[in-house]
């Protein structure tokens, strides 16, 4: 399968990074979304994800195009605007063994699709839910989305007077067990979070600030590269340790907190802001709200609680995918029909 040079590094499946790429991006040069795509490829490669088990979903937008640009070995479904969560929900029911990656935009998820976002999180649909958040509708040429900050202005000079909807605090409120905010310009942090996300079971909400270089990168925008860089406050340094490596890694004692995922993988969290505890749901909420008021972007693992059952567990489904169950298991017998008919006479 590999088309890279034989010397290219391989992962635990013997695959090279080239095995995780997709088709060529058609986004604007410098678009934050492309940087996210790169990190998804890296994380999937480093985590040794089986490409054929991946299902990629998206709505509509520049961001929603990107599933075509990573993991060609997986199946993709670019659906309709704002409805990516329902797509992931249906597919996870049909085949609970799939690894679901949903990519959406801030317009896709926080404007037209807020309802679907809310309900997918509430159901704990097993998926990595990525919001590539640029504060505007890129694909329709730069109108404000519902995550635009109050006071931010468009290139035309129009000022947003409405308060933003914050996907992260909303997700925490809804009981999401893995909520992170990242910046597409901080690959190290994003990579560690994506790898942790692959190890999690349930909905992972990643709000990734991802500047739109074409429509929202000017000085009066709060989502420009410069503005975000200046206001990005990483909460911690993160180190992801996959279950297969847990034995071999020395984790420095002291300020490092370890969170363990169901598969045994761990994420080591070394605090930068020592007053922030990502396992304290309401404390986290308070700190995030306070920092938003100051115009800061707190980035990192905002909240983590890996013990919540995903939707597919709650439904108590058989282990094998429903999609491929044989007729013998699905069609009730002749006797059952006769019994039902008798009860209706």
């Amino acid at each position, binding site marked *: *399968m590999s088309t890279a040079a034989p010397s290219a590094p391989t992962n635990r499946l013997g695959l090279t990074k080239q095995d995780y790429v997709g*088709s060529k991006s058609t986004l604007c040069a410098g678009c934050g979304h492309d940087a996210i795509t790169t990190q998804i490829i890296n994380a999937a490669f480093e985590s040794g994800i089986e*490409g*054929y*088990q*991946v*299902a990629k979903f998206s709505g509509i937008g520049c961001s929603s195009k990107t*599933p*075509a640009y990573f993991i*060609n*070995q*997986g*199946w*993709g*479904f*670019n*659906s*309709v605007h704002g*409805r990516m*969560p*329902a*797509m*992931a*929900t*249906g*597919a996870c*029911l*049909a*085949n609970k*063994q*799939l690894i679901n990656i949903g990519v959406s935009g801030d317009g896709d998820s926080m404007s037209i699709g807020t*309802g*679907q976002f*809310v*309900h997918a999180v509430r*159901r704990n649909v097993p998926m990595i839910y990525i919001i590539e958040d640029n504060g505007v509708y890129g694909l329709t040429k730069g109108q404000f989305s519902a995550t635009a900050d109050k006071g931010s202005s468009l290139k035309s000079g129009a000022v947003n007077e409405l308060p933003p909807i914050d996907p992260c605090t909303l997700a925490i409120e809804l009981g999401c067990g893995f909520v992170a905010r990242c910046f597409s310009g901080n690959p190290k942090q994003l990579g560690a979070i994506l790898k942790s996300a692959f190890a999690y079971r349930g909905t992972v909400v990643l709000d990734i600030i991802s500047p739109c270089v074409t429509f929202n990168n000017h000085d009066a925008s709060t989502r420009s590269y410069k503005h975000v860089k200046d206001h990005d406050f990483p909460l911690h340094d993160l180190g992801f340790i996959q279950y297969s490596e847990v034995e071999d890694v020395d984790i420095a004692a002291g300020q490092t907190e370890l969170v363990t995922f169901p598969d045994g993988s761990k994420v080591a969290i070394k605090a930068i802001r020592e007053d922030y505890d990502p396992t304290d749901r309401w404390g986290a909420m308070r700190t995030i709200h306070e920092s938003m008021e100051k115009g800061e972007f707190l980035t990192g693992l905002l909240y983590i609680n890996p013990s919540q059952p995903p*939707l597919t567990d709650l*439904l*108590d*489904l*058989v*282990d094998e*995918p*429903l*999609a*491929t*169950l044989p*007729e013998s*298991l*699905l*069609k*009730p017998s*002749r006797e*059952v*029909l*006769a019994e*039902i*008919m008798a009860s*209706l*006479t």
Partner: protein
Amino acid sequence: MNATPVASPQAQGAKTRINDFSIQVATVNGSGSQTANMVLLRAIFQMGVFVSGKNLFPSNIAGLPTWFTIRASAKGYVARKASNELLILMNPETAKEDIASADPGALVIYDEPLQLDRIREDLHCIPVPFQKLVTASCPEPKLHKLVKNMIYVGVASRVLGVDMEEVRKAIAKQLKGKAKAIEMNQTAATAGYDWAMEHLEDQLGVRVVRDNKTDGLIIIDGNEACALGALFAGCTVVGWYPITPASTLVETFIEYAAEHRKDPATGKATVAIVQMEDELASAGVVLSAGWAGARSMTSTSGPGVSLMSEFIGLGYFVEAPGVFFNVARTGPSTGLPTRTQQSDVELCAKCSHGDTRHINLYPGNMEECFQFAYDAFDLAERFQTPIFVVTDLDLGMQNWSSKPFAYPDKPYDRGKVLNQQQLAEAKDWGRYKDVDGDGICYRTLPGTAGGKGAYFTRGSGHNAYALYSEKPEDYIEVMERLNRKYETSKTYVPAPVIRPMGSSIGVLAFGSSDPAVIEAQDLLAESGLPTDYLRLRALPFTAEVDAFVTEKRVVYVVEQNRDGQMANLFREAYPEHGTKFKSVLHYNGHAIDASTIVDQINAFEQR
């Protein structure tokens, strides 16, 4: 019969209507009258007489007027009948209106204090002291409202000559397993019956006489029949959102699935059912589950289909399977949400923006609700597209007698899906390549190992290899192929049922209109106008439909909507015969009846 037989007004001169009459019961909804009405219907059914029941209920939980009609017919006609021979008026609010519209000579059972006998003299009035009887037969005042209804069942049974033993059995059946309720209701019904024995004369106008027409038959509604079809079809994913009259389809499915869709080895479920946040999400779940290989479905009504329409277009264009039940109600908007109509014909035929055409199935009776629901899952996977099963409130929620359903022996058709091995052997596979020339391509399911077969599904333009394309020729190729696929489906969908009388006059109908059309066809023939009746069972139109349209001088298209939606589809499909199609319409929210059809056809024929 120990009361003195004295002929009723009807019996004087008129012949007795044996097993051929309609009863209308007027009550208040939420009063438990549905159980009483079902008991009366069942008791007549158990007497071997063909019956159908229609509940005309309000969009309200409790306190508004509701009517239930029971039609008994020795000839097997089960459509709504415009006239009623027996009225049971339990609702003081509507009693005056109900009695004003009664047919002369009708029997009227009512609560004594209403003094309805003062309003009209041409009716056979039967005042019943319900309060007295209730107090005597039931010590618990809070149950009086419920018991009162069972008393009219007893009285009516005596009036009609229904065997009390059948009433007792019907109560036991209706209240399955609830011993205390059964006893209480049986006592109440008996109290009504005994009172009537003592105080009423035999009336000879309308009688139930034991027959054997219902031996071996079942009573069921269309939603339950569809639910059973889906159960046996192995439906594995359901995403739905409640809406009258479609909710009970999924709710019944849930009940059956809880029992019959568990892996015997582990006790775990072989179906996932999720109540979604709306119909958009439901449609998304159905299509993505279908795309991922599940047999998926939803059940909704017109407003839900409207919301789903963007997704349905996606499903059509990317070729994702899914079964969409539309149990239609009276639109537009909220319309009359608890009344019936066939007004989503065009909506479902072409649901969504852009050029779209869908396979639609129109079951016309309970066996077909079961069978077509079963077949819909095969069609969805065979044609990799959304399939509509279009019923309506009349089929879906009313009670129908039916032959028991035959076991669906036909193995599932899972369509053209390539597995890992087939993919390994396939040369130059493309998701949208028409290898067989039937417009149907080979798909793969996410999660298939082997490193081949992954593809990207998109609602935007794509070529045969599922790659993004805006090239005119690629777009045209896809759209033409989708048409070819639709053409292929003509040999898979159910052919129409034709009831010929050797006439050049065609009558064409579908779905719940069937019983009324059969009765109308008989009435027209008796009056010297034989017709040939074609019951359409699916879209697209098949060769049999082509032939029928071509050979008839005129085709009366009977449908339950204002705009003649089915006739419009016919005019579009057969422009050369466009003037042949004449619309026979009924759309007031009540189920269609035979006289409406007879009158309109007679008017066209200037008879």
